[in-house]
């Protein structure tokens, strides 16, 4: 029991160290790439931010699994007892624990507690939001379209894409009434772009991946992803309607219509006025309208596999390397 607990805390410490190392690497690469990336298309920037957001989590999961694989394989009878080969340092093993070192125990316990706390918070927020969106959806009526548009009653707050797998656009009837047909087309084209890009799913994955890294790093990368995704969807909407200025007009009109007594006073993490100004200026500066597809999810999965497969194949070597590093560090 104690050996299993030690193993769990050691694995948590390894995951925390790997994720922190990987996120520092991502930050360093981002600092170098920012000047170049700012000239890239919004879609590419969103892909890079997504990759940066999920990479530390992929490294932490793959590395921890790889480090933990030999004792698990040995316990399942799939491999010989690896502990016979190294008696000179720390054992990362729930069968032959060499005793938990206080520093690893503290780091592991802190990381595990933080992870569980933040995980529960993300999950409960996600479930609450999903429940509220479904309740809103039930109040509305499906209008039309390849991607269903649900007209919801109430003041003009909503023009919102939702659905991880089956996409829906929630549109306040009063917002639609306050806009011209061209502006409604722009808003819907923008939301359809979010659904085609699978942004709600990518956003959830980034939130989950963010559990592995320090909160400020996770927020920074998520913010970069969201801003780039909004701009990519603006470009898609401009390509769909063939007039970037019309999309800019729609943005300003919706922002004006949404201002009202119903606007929440609470501080909400938002893109803010700078984001609106930047989006409008970008649309107006656009000369050629080009819609670029996103490869964020594909690249994210491919990179995760590229990290995980070699680590799992070389699990025994990696396991020993991790033990040596932990032995020297703590």
């Amino acid at each position: 029991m104690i050996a299993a607990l030690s193993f769990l805390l050691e694995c948590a410490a390894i995951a925390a160290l790997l994720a922190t190392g990987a996120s520092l690497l991502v930050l360093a690469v981002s600092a170098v790439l920012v000047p170049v990336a700012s000239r890239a298309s919004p879609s590419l920037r969103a892909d890079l931010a997504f990759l940066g957001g999920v990479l530390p989590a992929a490294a932490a999961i793959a590395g921890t699994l790889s480090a933990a694989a030999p004792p698990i394989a040995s316990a399942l009878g799939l491999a010989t007892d690896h502990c016979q080969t190294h008696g000179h340092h720390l054992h990362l093993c729930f069968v032959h624990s060499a005793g938990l070192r206080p520093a690893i125990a503290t780091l592991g316990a802190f990381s595990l507690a933080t992870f569980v706390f933040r995980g529960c918070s993300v999950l409960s927020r996600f479930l609450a939001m999903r429940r509220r969106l479904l309740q809103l959806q039930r109040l509305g009526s499906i209008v039309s379209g390849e991607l269903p548009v649900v007209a919801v009653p109430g003041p003009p707050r909503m023009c919102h894409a939702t659905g991880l797998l089956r996409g829906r656009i929630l549109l306040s009837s009063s917002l639609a009434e306050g806009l011209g047909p061209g502006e409604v087309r722009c808003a819907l084209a923008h939301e359809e772009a979010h659904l085609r890009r699978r942004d709600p799913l990518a956003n959830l994955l980034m939130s989950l991946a963010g559990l592995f890294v320090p909160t400020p790093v996770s927020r920074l990368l998520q913010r970069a992803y969201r801003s780039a995704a909004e701009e990519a969807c603006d470009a898609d909407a401009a390509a769909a309607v063939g007039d970037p200025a019309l999309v800019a007009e729609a943005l300003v009109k919706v922002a004006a219509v949404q201002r009202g007594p119903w606007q929440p006073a609470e501080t909400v993490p938002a893109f803010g006025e700078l984001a609106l100004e930047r989006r409008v200026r970008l649309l107006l500066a656009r000369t050629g309208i080009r819609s670029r597809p996103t490869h964020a999810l594909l690249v994210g999965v491919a990179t995760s596999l590229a990290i995980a497969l070699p680590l799992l194949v070389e699990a025994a070597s990696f396991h020993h390397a991790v033990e040596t590093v932990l032995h020297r560090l703590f």
Partner: protein
Amino acid sequence: MPIAMNRRALQPLGELETAVMDVAWKRPSVTAREVCDRMTGTQERAYTTIMTTLDRLHRKGLLRREKDGLAWRYEPALTKSEFEKGLADELAARILADHGDAALSAFVDAAAKVDDTLLDELRRLITLRRRETR
């Protein structure tokens, strides 16, 4: 606007509460016995269950009541349309306030503080751009 004054009333209803309110919304006023008589088939419930539900809806502020002999007579405090609009607004407000991440998929971030000066400036830029491209 009466619905804005009573936020407690603007919560999603359960299945039984919805069925009872549907009966109440179709008539100017109802007693527990009248609701019970109109809820048949799969909706049928014991008289005491309906009484409790009506009392709960009254406490939520969705029904007003006055004595009618020995029984209470209930009437809706809001029309169905008022309730649905108010509930949709309440849900949207909660989504914006509690889930900043939701802004990701919103056409314009409704929670952003945007002032008139900025909007006027952006309108001016768009007009300028339109003139240039003509």
